[in-house]
């Protein structure tokens, strides 16, 4: 819902920011590439420094424009459709800082840095930021944080909030603030950085983040075990968890997903076993024993190709949902969903131990999408869980709040948004309750 084409306030904004930005950092030419839920911004600006970003935001506020910060654009489908969107702020040029302290296991990076580049540089020192969202090579640090994107490693490593130890943010009024620091343990001040994770840029634009890191495992292998039912597959995952095996990721694939990833349309558990060589050997032999007990065969191998296919299959697509239930309810929920989605080519993958079920659907037409979402919402609610929508057709997004029903703590969230962005400059309407 961009404002009218010849907006005096837009001209005022452009005139105000142009002198402080690089000549080619203000452009309307690429605006289409920055559309969010079908809404195209009037202008794209690419600040190259913290100070430039501060200018952009304070001028946007002055001109009463709405701005959305865009990283790699891989998770723009997350959240509600924007209520207004005039200025796209590309973080692509905020990528100069990379301060890795291998002996401290920490890294400080600018928000526009691509996650893939960070991982490649850390890997050279045998370390990793254990986040593996399915979003290809373009995802940036800022985008991964703002959308709280995560992948199969969540099984062993949790989510971004567990690794983020410090942040710098520019707020809607152009002021900048930080929280946390560069040391792995720090309880000074409120942990504001937790609030920006998953905030979709509604509280501020992340410009720099510091993470603690994990050592890369010295040995790893991937096991695939096929089952006839979701229940047997989930029981296998939970038994392996209880045995304390060295498992870094364990995804439970529904038959359509297993067909796409493993070319085998059964319920398949894809598990990455990793750690020291002795721990990996012991874990693989125990997994083999558990599989045999369940009457299932085990395939093991490098797994790189399988995980790449997984990542491709579970990138946010036309209609991407995430159901969150208790781990004990994963199998039943997946079976109910599998039946309910018959005919919609639903591919599902669950990080069973975290209770997260990802669903990618290809509805035959948009009307059908609404029915599928309602069904998933109903199934999630009956299992005591929640449904999040990571991507959906435009019309559907306008009709519903993709975050689902509001809870009693929404009043605190609304006051927080009012405190940090009273004029609704940043990503207006995209967050829970259309904040």
């Amino acid at each position: 819902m961009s404002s009218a084409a010849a907006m005096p306030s837009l001209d005022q904004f452009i005139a105000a920011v142009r002198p402080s930005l690089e000549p080619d950092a203000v452009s309307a030419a690429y605006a289409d590439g920055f559309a969010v839920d079908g809404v195209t911004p009037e202008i794209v600006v690419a600040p190259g420094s913290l100070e430039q970003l501060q200018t952009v935001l304070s001028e946007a506020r002055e001109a009463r424009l709405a701005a959305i910060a865009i990283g790699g654009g891989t998770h723009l489908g997350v959240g509600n459709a924007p209520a207004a969107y005039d200025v796209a702020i590309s973080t692509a040029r905020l990528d100069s800082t990379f301060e890795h302290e291998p002996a401290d296991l920490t890294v400080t990076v600018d928000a526009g840095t691509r996650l893939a580049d960070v991982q490649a540089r850390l890997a050279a020192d045998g370390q990793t930021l254990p986040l593996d969202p399915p979003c290809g090579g373009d995802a940036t640090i800022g985008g991964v944080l703002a959308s709280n994107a995560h992948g199969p490693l969540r099984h062993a490593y949790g989510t971004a909030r567990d690794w983020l130890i410090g942040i710098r943010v520019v707020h809607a009024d152009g002021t900048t603030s930080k929280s946390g620091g560069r040391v792995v343990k720090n309880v000074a001040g409120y942990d504001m950085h937790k609030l920006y994770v998953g905030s979709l840029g509604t509280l501020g634009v992340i410009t720099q983040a510091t993470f603690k890191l994990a050592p890369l495992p010295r040995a790893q292998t991937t096991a695939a075990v096929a089952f006839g039912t979701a229940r047997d597959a989930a029981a296998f995952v939970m038994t392996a968890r209880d045995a304390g095996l060295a498992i870094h990721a364990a995804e439970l694939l529904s038959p359509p997903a297993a067909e796409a990833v493993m070319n085998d349309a059964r319920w398949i558990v894809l598990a990455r076993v990793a750690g020291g060589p002795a721990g990996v050997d012991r874990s693989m032999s125990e997994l083999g024993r558990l599989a045999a007990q369940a009457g299932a065969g085990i395939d093991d191998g490098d797994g790189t190709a399988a995980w790449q296919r997984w990542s491709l299959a579970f990138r946010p697509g036309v209609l991407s949902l995430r159901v969150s239930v208790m781990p004990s309810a994963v199998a039943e929920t997946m079976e109910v969903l599998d039946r309910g989605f018959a005919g919609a080519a639903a591919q599902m993958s669950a990080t069973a131990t975290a209770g997260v079920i990802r669903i990618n659907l290809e509805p035959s037409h948009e009307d059908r999408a609404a029915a599928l979402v309602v069904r998933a919402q109903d199934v999630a609610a009956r299992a005591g869980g929640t449904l999040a929508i990571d991507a959906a057709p435009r019309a559907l997004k306008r009709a519903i709040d993709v975050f689902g029903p509001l809870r009693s703590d929404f009043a605190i969230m609304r006051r927080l948004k009012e405190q940090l962005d009273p004029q609704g400059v940043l990503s207006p309407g995209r967050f829970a309750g259309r904040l």
Partner: protein
Amino acid sequence: MGRAYTWDNASDCWERTPMATESDSISAPAHRPVTRACVRELERVLGHERVLSTPEQLIAYEYDGTIERGVPQAVVFPESTEHVAAAVRVAHRFGVPVIPRGAGTGLSGGAIAAVGGVVVALTRMKRVIEVDPVNRIAIVEPGVVNLDLSRAVARHNLYYAPDPSSQRACTIGGNVAENAGGPHCLAYGATTNHVLGMEIVLADGEVTWIGGRSRDVPGYDLTGAFVGSEGTLAIATKIAVRLMALPESTRTLLAIFNTVDDASNAVSAIMAAGILPSALEMMDRNIIAAVEPVLHAGFPLDAEAVLLIEVDGLDESTVEHAEEIRAICEQHAAREVRVAVAQVDRDLLWAGRKTSISALGRLYPNYYVLDGVVPRTRLPDVLRQTYAIAEKYGLDVANVFHAGDGNLHPNLLFDEREPGVKERVLRAGAEIMRLCVDAGGSITGEHGVGLEKRDYIAWIFDDADLAVMARLKTAFKAGDEYNPCKAFPTGKGCGEVTQVQIQRLAGQIGTDVYV
């Protein structure tokens, strides 16, 4: 450092009487005193048996684990969320400070009634409400003692990972307030990594849940911002925590070094080798001197540093990692490395670490525990300077700390009967904190800012950072009456005597902001 209170009939309230002799001017109290009417109302809504208000009763609640003192004007003992909400509503109506309190083991003055007010003691709310072993979650009341939770879930082969040294006494509610750590947070994270959601009572008595039983509740991560907020945002009345499986095998190593530098370099080498021990602790020669005569653990008195290292997981993994760690320690000139597997042998190695603080009592009647963090690569340098600062002020210092994550705990040793010694202790403490900040670290890794260090916070956060944090407080509707004078250098009437000294020290040592 303390104050007494006397009942003043004219104003119908407790009147504060400064006990200290320092000539510092104390700013006028901006906080309302608890009146007799307020006490009567608390008694009416909670019952007489849940309210203390006589000076002789209150004196027991004037302290926590720090050297600060502050007598509250009432202490209430709620037994339910409704009680907490009722007490908080009364305090809100009368406009008096509310100070949440767990076991009172805190080391930053977080539970001290700095300007009087009502202490809400949560020790009677100690039910483990629910344990869900399959989903590895427990819902507990805030007064549950940390170790009691692990004991309550042990039959399911589970435990609660954060293990502050006070875990036999400290409560989960207090752990949440301070984002408590412990030796094993090196591998498993601090309290914030183990709390999923909470029922909280806001300053006006409103009750709400933030977070839930999983990390995936929609909206901002209010739980993440709440943990470590030092009782300044709200009072948690139910806490959903993550449980972990007890490891199949644990191996503990004790490595003895001739120099602190060798030990520090071994720490860095272990981390750089891609091994993440579950704990990696260091004790220096003054700790050894205090501990060895009591324990007879065989610590050589001429050794400069001892590392205590633990690995857990599958048996094969701990064998593998323990051998690698032994080799690394030997490469860094460890003169002896012991490895223990059986619980009884491991307990013996840990005994020195766990009793070290109390053993310091053999050397000096008083000690002041500091809590600073530095990047672990800076440990050798920072330790050297810590010894130099202590020497400059004519003090002994003993270091026992979480070396793996760079979390230092220098203990300044003194005898408070010695005139002027407290001033020197505070001054040395301030310099050591500044040293941590200048090394790129923080003024607290796990004890909290509390009353003690609120004026040092300007060394790491500027006004804009603090302004944003103040906005979070507004979002939680928490005014200046919710645990006043804690965590931030704001608030009127917080001019405690020690505080005035600290403010002055902070000003002398530096006010510039580290970025």
